[in-house]
């Protein structure tokens, strides 16, 4: 392979050179290539980060009338938190995932304080966890959000089928963009019952838990959500919940 044979055709001419074998040794070449490959493997990355785009309201003071108060029946408040050990490290479950908890209540907070001592006995707070789908069934908080946004999701599912069959346009990019535009229309369709989600985070909550909550908004096609600061009542409700139901 690496040798070049100089075969002489026909009869030997007088004074013709002898049959020569040129052998090129490729070993150093392979050595060098291997070094280069190692270099590229160590210094480069194949993974490109994904981004999650969000829009937050500005910090300017908004007039009370301008604030569009969410309808009570549509509102759901999520309070994300992370289970931490006493030294502040995050508790992990058996699979090595961190234990992110999400407390939620619908509508207005209902505070039960029978003896008016500022310590709550009960509230309408519930606890859930972030869980992935099992097959195609939702679990955990995703199921609750899914059920509340049923109308939008049903329409989007229909749309997805059309998109998969390329019914909008045979061109892939065009098909995608039409699908995106239509999905957005459905998400913002005010004739459907759509939930308004308020996301809050306790001081212990990890960045991951908040991203998980934002992610649920994406998965469940919820267009109206906001991130808010946790207030005193929220902490009281969590305290009452933990006192009543224990930490697990």
């Amino acid at each position, binding site marked *: 392979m690496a040798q070049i044979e100089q075969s002489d055709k026909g009869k030997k001419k007088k004074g013709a050179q002898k049959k020569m074998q040129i052998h090129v040794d490729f070993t150093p070449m*392979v050595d060098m290539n291997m070094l280069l*490959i190692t270099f590229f493997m160590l210094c480069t990355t194949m993974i490109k*980060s994904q981004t999650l785009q969000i829009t937050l309201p500005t*910090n300017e003071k908004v007039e009370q009338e301008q604030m569009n108060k969410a309808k009570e029946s549509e509102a759901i408040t999520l309070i994300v938190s992370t289970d931490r050990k006493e030294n502040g490290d995050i508790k992990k479950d058996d699979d090595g995932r961190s234990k992110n908890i999400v407390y939620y209540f619908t509508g207005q907070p209902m505070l039960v304080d029978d003896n008016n001592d500022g310590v709550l006995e009960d509230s309408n707070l519930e606890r859930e966890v972030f869980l992935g789908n099992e097959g195609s069934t939702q679990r955990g908080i995703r199921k609750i959000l899914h059920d509340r946004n049923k109308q939008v999701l049903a329409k989007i599912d229909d749309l997805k089928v059309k998109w998969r069959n390329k019914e909008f346009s045979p061109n892939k990019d065009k098909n995608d963009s039409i699908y995106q535009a239509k999905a957005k229309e459905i998400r913002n369709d005010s004739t459907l019952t759509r939930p308004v989600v308020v996301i809050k985070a306790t001081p212990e909550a990890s960045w991951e838990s908040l991203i998980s909550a934002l992610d649920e908004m994406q998965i469940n096609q919820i267009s109206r959500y906001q991130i808010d600061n946790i207030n005193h009542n929220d902490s009281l409700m969590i305290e009452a919940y933990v006192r009543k139901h224990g930490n697990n």
Partner: protein
Amino acid sequence: MGKVKIKRKSTLIDMTAMSDVTVLLLTFFMLTSTFLQKEPVTVITPSSVSEMKVPTANLAQVLISPEGKVFISIAGEADPNVADGEWGSEPIRKEILTKAVSEYNKLHPNKKVELTEADANAFSKINMFGVPFQALPTFLRMSQTDQDKVISDMSRADVGIPIDDNKDLTKPNEFQIWMRAIYSSGNDNLQSAMKKGEGIAVKADQTTPYSTVHHVLDNLQTLKMNRFSLMTALKTEQD
């Protein structure tokens, strides 16, 4: 008895095929991968189902270390043909540095920061920076290895861009000075990307408490840069 003669065989192995394979592999790696950017801390971003890719050009990336230290990296236009090669990463960083330092000097007339041309050149070579204005001259005059050592030492007080809960934009904190300088650097591509929310990416470790990250988000909101993206890794709905 006759001796069995063992024929001497040549031990030369033909390396041509091997070399072919390695060259192919090399080409593959060179074409598909991108170089790792030097960052003061390695963070593992949380995962989401969002499939939007992070842009490589016209991006201001804000990195938050688990200790709450803030770093910024600026990438200009990757394509030199756009805007006549005027706005590659290096010229844009220089422009931002000049803007930010003059803004800082205007606000703090007693503690002016003086930078030379060589300092500005050194700054334009740094991918991710994060030192207070007062420490900038000393930092930029260090050798590159010393710079790396300083910036990755999270226990130092002079590492990380100072940030607080300031809401008054007439007296901006250092993070706000930097972000405003990036926004008004004169590069239209970067500015429009920032307006659309693609130009600002916030990156933090998944274990970082939200209260730490919230600080930065709150500052961005104060700056009216309320559209931005969060860096995540990919996962599926099954996870």
